[in-house]
């Protein structure tokens, strides 16, 4: 298998592209970031109009805490110590998921094992008997206005992750809105998976070979900024 994008760059490229998506909207947004690559999105957000929510009960989550600032009772949903921002606030988990379920969170960024061509996504369990947890994933994909899936285009051994039909237990039905990999950006429009951007390392034919999911190509297909 050929490595098209160096591993170190995969996560950064995905995170940066997702941050652009939010910045480009030029409006106040409330966003929930999952663990892993999604968390990196925060590094590429500038300005003071994008607010991060942590589902364990905080709005206005600041950067990770370091050194003296570490307070083990001020953590994000990935259990990382974080900091406050001006105007942040705390609330219980029912209020927190009320924001999510009630459609007040503009976007959630989540990782996934698989996404399929209908927008189903699987990110909560690999039924290998060693995992037993769902967390807030199902609430987030059902509740957030936009579900942004951040994932490498293929697994480390080259298996495709953008598939015709999810083989793993799904997290939600047809909930994915935007899928960002290191090679491409897909948007679901009226239930149809549409390729909007393609990375410079690959052409359309090459992408199709790595993508069992069937997709159409946007009339204005753009190069993915890297």
């Amino acid at each position, binding site marked *: 298998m050929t490595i098209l994008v160096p591993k170190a760059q995969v996560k950064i490229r995905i995170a940066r592209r997702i941050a652009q998506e939010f910045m480009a909207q030029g409006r106040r947004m409330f966003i929930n970031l999952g663990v892993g690559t999604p968390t990196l999105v925060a590094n590429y957000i500038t300005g003071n109009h994008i607010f991060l929510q942590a589902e364990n*009960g905080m709005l206005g989550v600041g950067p990770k805490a370091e050194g003296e600032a570490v307070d083990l*009772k001020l953590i994000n949903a990935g259990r990382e110590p974080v900091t406050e921002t001006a105007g942040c606030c*705390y609330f219980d988990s029912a209020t927190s*998921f009320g924001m999510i379920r009630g459609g007040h969170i503009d976007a959630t960024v989540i990782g996934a094992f698989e996404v399929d061509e209908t927008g189903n996504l699987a990110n909560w369990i690999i039924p290998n008997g060693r995992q*037993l947890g*769902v967390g807030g994933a199902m609430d987030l994909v059902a509740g957030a206005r936009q579900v942004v899936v951040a994932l490498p285009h293929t697994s480390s051994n080259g298996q495709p992750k953008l598939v015709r039909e999810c083989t793993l237990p799904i997290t*939600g039905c047809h909930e994915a809105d935007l899928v960002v990999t290191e090679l491409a950006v897909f948007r679901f429009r009226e239930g149809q998976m549409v390729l909007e951007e393609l990375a410079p390392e690959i052409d359309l034919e090459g992408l199709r070979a790595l993508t069992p999911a069937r997709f159409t190509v946007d009339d204005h297909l753009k190069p993915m900024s890297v």
Partner: protein
Amino acid sequence: MTIDDKVCTVEAAVAMIQSGDRIMVGSFGNSGYPEELVSALAASDQNELTIISNDLGSPGIGLGRFLTNRQIKALIGNYYNWNPEVAAAKNDGAIKVTLVPQGTFAEAIRAAGVGIPAFYVPAGVGTALAEGKPTAVFDNRTYILERAIQADVALIRAFRADTLGNLVYYKTARNFNPLMAMAARLTIAEVDEIIPAGELDPECIVTPHIFVDKLVLKVKP
């Protein structure tokens, strides 16, 4: 006639718990949980417990001690990947585990507290966690009927209490604690400080004392 004081020792508090009880414990990943109550319960003979909590800490740490000490019959919660002993115990048939999506879990606890037996949510529709649950369509969207989750005892962690039992919390250590305070027959709060009634700002009290039965002052740092 004297009215019982809510303040009691951690030993007295844990003595109110029976083997076989359904016990809620406020927590989120080893943060914001009642440390001394959990330690005392883990050191007790009570077993066959159903523990209702977000997660189960880590192996041998925090709420994880209940499993290490074989005190658990069943778990109701949502995220046990931080404690691999949970999956192992389930695979062995030693415990029963019910997973509920985290937001539904939070809402179901609140529902028990506010007398709502069941409610509809969109989370989980079409997934394995919806199996066997009734569904209904409202405004062209499918929802799952979820049931309230109540308990015999809630062990919660707050920051400061007044002598009546009004509570305030500390940052993200709030988590499920205010919800669980409402949802159990007996609510025991572990707090860092107890101040005279009237000294908490009435606008800032998060858990009114009506929901709190016992107060334990945390003594260890």
